[in-house]
Structures are given as C-alpha cells and as structure tokens.
C-alpha cells in the first residue's frame, strides 16, 4: 500500500520559495490502477517523484507498506515519458533488459528466460538485437515497460508515458498496458493530463488543482468495465464532469500568465 499523508513540497530558489504541494493525502491499495490527473504545473509529477523517492517531502509523510519512502527503491519503478533518455541508447533491446537484471543481481541463469518472457509480453522479441534509435517511439516505450517489469516491482509509477506518442499508438499502448496490468496485478500510479486517457485506464482518478499550493480536489471512482468506450453515455457524462472540474483551473492559469 502506498500512502501519502498531508504532504507539502516546497522548492527553494534564489527567487524565493515555491509551494508546489500543500497538504496532499492519498492512499493507493495494492493492485490498484490510479491516475493523477491535472493541468500542466499541478504538481502531479512532483507527487510521483516523491512516491518514487527521487525528491524528499518538505512536510507530511510518504510511506510504502509500513516503511517511509527515503529514496528510490527496487519495489517502485518509474517509467518516464522520454523513453529515449530513460533507456541506454548504446545497448540493444536485449542488453537494456540485461542491464536491469544485472544491477538487480538476478542470477545469470535466469536472464534468458526473463528476457524472453517480458519481450514477448510487449511484442518486442523479434527486435531484440535492435538499438533504441532503430525503434519507433511506441516500441521504445514498450521496451522501457518490459525493462521495468523484468525486475518485477510491486508498483509501477508512470509519468505521462504515452504523451509523446501519436493518438493511434497511444490507444494501442493503453490496451497493452491494461493487458499487462490485468495479468500481473501490480499497483499502477499513472500521471496524465489527458482526461480520456485517465478514464480509459484508471480504477480511481485523483484530480489535482493547478499550483502553487496544489491539492487533490477530488477522487473519482470509475466502476465501469474495461475496455471503456468514450461514446458510452456514462463515460461521456464522467468526461464532462471532470472537464468542468478542471476548466476553472485552466482559466485561472491563463489569467495568472496574462497578469505577468
């Protein structure tokens, strides 16, 4: 179980301090698929970085299981939007997976089997000798997913992983991800600014307000069967509801930028 309680995040700089998060609380159960949804600059990536252990909290607590999160941990793997820089471009597809197994100290005898299993899971087993630069954006992202899964974490933290992909590829990746999630049953925390993406994927959506002093304004349960059709009346109503929730924030963001 991942839990953040009343966390604050303050960035200090020469120009003063910026309160990014101000009193965010959220509990994520094992095996749950939660989306953090909000406009750009709402602190959703900050929250994810705190869950990953990349950044310390300024106040409040972040825990995984019973232990406080103090740094990057092997049980929580982050998936980045820019797969090109997250992967090691000088290693082939297969070698990228092996890199993960090597640093995780998994016995060499198991490497071949694990590599095969996860490359097959994301449909890259026929490309194992290619280099990341030779793959499409969607394939690179699938490789990043396979590499993360290969070390068998309990939690997948995904920071807008499909935002840079074209719409068709993104829809395909949603299917791939849901398939994998249903098969392995791990917890997923997925950051996005795309309402449709959040609705098609999540069990729960945590809607965040624009910073400074971001908070979670609402947590929405989605009790609808997958795959979810955006044309479905219930889904469409949900979409409208979330849009209404986010719009005032966007207007406020615009006004603030204009005021400068």
């Amino acid at each position, binding site marked *: 179980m991942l839990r953040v309680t009343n966390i604050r995040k303050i960035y200090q700089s020469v120009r003063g301090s910026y309160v990014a998060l101000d009193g965010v609380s959220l509990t994520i159960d094992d095996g749950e698929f939660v989306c953090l949804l909000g406009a750009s600059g709402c602190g959703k990536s900050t929250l994810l970085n705190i869950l990953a252990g990349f950044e310390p909290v300024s106040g409040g607590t972040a825990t995984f299981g019973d232990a406080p999160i103090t740094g990057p941990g092997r049980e929580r793997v982050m998936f980045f939007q820019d797969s090109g820089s997250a992967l*090691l471009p000088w290693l082939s597809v297969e070698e990228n997976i092996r*890199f993960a197994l090597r640093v995780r100290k998994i016995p060499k005898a198991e490497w071949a089997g694990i590599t095969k299993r996860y490359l097959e899971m994301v449909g890259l087993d026929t490309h194992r000798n290619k*280099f990341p630069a030779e793959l499409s954006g969607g394939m690179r992202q699938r490789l990043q997913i396979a590499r993360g899964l290969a070390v068998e*974490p309990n939690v997948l933290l995904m920071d807008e992983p499909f935002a840079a992909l074209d719409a068709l590829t993104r829809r395909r990746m949603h299917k791939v991800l849901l398939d994998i999630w249903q098969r392995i049953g791990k917890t997923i925390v997925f950051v996005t600014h795309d309402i449709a993406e959040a609705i098609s994927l999540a069990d729960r959506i945590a809607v965040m307000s624009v910073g400074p002093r971001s908070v979670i304004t609402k947590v929405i349960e989605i009790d609808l069967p997958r795959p979810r059709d955006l044309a479905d009346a219930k889904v469409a109503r949900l979409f409208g509801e979330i849009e209404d929730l986010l719009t005032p924030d966007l207007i406020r963001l615009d006004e603030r930028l204009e005021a400068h």
Partner: protein
Amino acid sequence: MSTVYSREGRSAEETGEASAPRRWQAWAAFPAVRKLSLAAASLLIGFCTWQVLSTYVFNPFLIPPPLDVFRTAIPMLASGEILSDVTISMVRVLVGFTTGSLAGVIMGVLLGRVRLLHDLLDPIMELLRYLSPTAMIPIAVIWFGIGEMSKYFLIFWGTFFIVLINTTAGVWRAPLTRQRAAACLGASRLQIFVLVIVPSAVPYIVTGMRVAMASSFMSIIPAEILAANSGIGYLLQQSSLLLQTNRIFVALLTICVLGFIVDRIFRLIVDKVLARYMSFVSQT
C-alpha cells in the same frame, strides 16, 4: 496524377530523348562515386590553377608550381627523409595526445562528478586554458630542453584542457532521467556512474578528442620550429633558412595529407569501436 507521370516516363523511353539526363541520373545515383569523382575534380582543378598561376602570374620562386614541388618531393620520399620526420612528429603527437586525453578524461570525470572539486579547480582551469601550447614553448624549453620531453609536454598541455572541458560537460549533461531510471532498477551509485554517466559522456569526450587532435597538429609545428632538431616543423624551419621554397611546400603538403589521414583513422576507430555510444534518441 499518376497517369501523367507514367505517360511521361513511357514517352521518354520511346523517343530515347532523355538518354543523356538518364546517364547523369545513373551516375548521381551512387553517392559514393559522385562524391569521390567531385573530390578528384576539385583537387585536379586546384592543382591546375596553382600550376598556371605560379608559372605565369606569380614569382615561381615564392610560390613554386606543383610539378616542381612534386619533383622535389620524390627524392625526399625515396630517401626516407620525409618518412623519418613524419614518424618523429607523429610519435610526439601520439604520446602527448594519448597522455593528455587520458588525464583530461580522468580529471573531467572527477570535475563533472565532484561538485566541490569542480568549484575549487574550475577558476584555475578557466585561466590556464588560455595559455596555448605555443605560448608555453619558451618555458617548456627551459624546463625540458629541446628533447622529446618538451614536445610531449606541449602536446599534452594543448590536449588536456580541451578534453577536460568536454568531458566535464558530458558528465554534467548525462540525462537525469537516465540516472533515475537506473536507480529505480536497483543500480548502486557506483554502477550509475560507471554504467550510465560515463557512457553518456562518450560523444562529448570523442568530440573533445577530435578537436584536441586538430590542435595537436597545429601546435607540434611551432614547437618543432622553435625548439627541435628533427620533425616536420624542423624541416620547415631549415628549408626556410636555406630559402628552399620547394622543400617548404613539400613539408606543408605533408602536414595537410597527414592531418587528413589521421582524422580519417580517428573517425574509423570511433565508428568501429564507439558507434553504439554516439547515437542519441532523447526527445528533449
């Protein structure tokens, strides 16, 4: 649109009118052949122009025509005179460049990684790097004499700072995302450093080394002119004292050809050994 296209193609075939442009296209279709023949043409035109200008326009003593230069070069090549000078200069460059690169990479990695060391040493480095190898010749002669050591030192000096600055920049710019991703997978700090940060810096290091190689070629010549009794620079200086412009031009041409060959060899090695480190796929 496609019908217009095919009809045009057919008419050209039928009439045979387009055979000349066709041949041109076929020739241009092999980029390597095209490039090579254009390079040959460029050199040929250059030499012809040089020959004509130095024979009819300029004083052939000041600018000897290429044919004279080649005539001078042949016995120098045959007797091994050039080869021995080239070898001497190349060994100097190689020793200075290798040690300078090695020291530059090691220091650069340290400065890129240890903030305190960087902040302490950077101001000194920033000042010292303006001392070109040429500026260091007089003191190098006093320190090391006119033997090999002073030349090694000067090439080392020129190489070290260029490689150092590039390496530091490369280590600095290793994507944070890549380091964090590796940390998540379970990599230790040492593993992140050795397996992620240093390889990420390779393109910067290679760029630095190429620039340093060019600079080594620039600085070995003045070093040998001012303080040596062998090498290409010495050949230049002796020929100048004896007013042998033909021999000066042979030496100059040798430097051109040598620089070109060494750069090609360097690139070939990089392509063969380091190719996988030289590609970027990041979106940012």
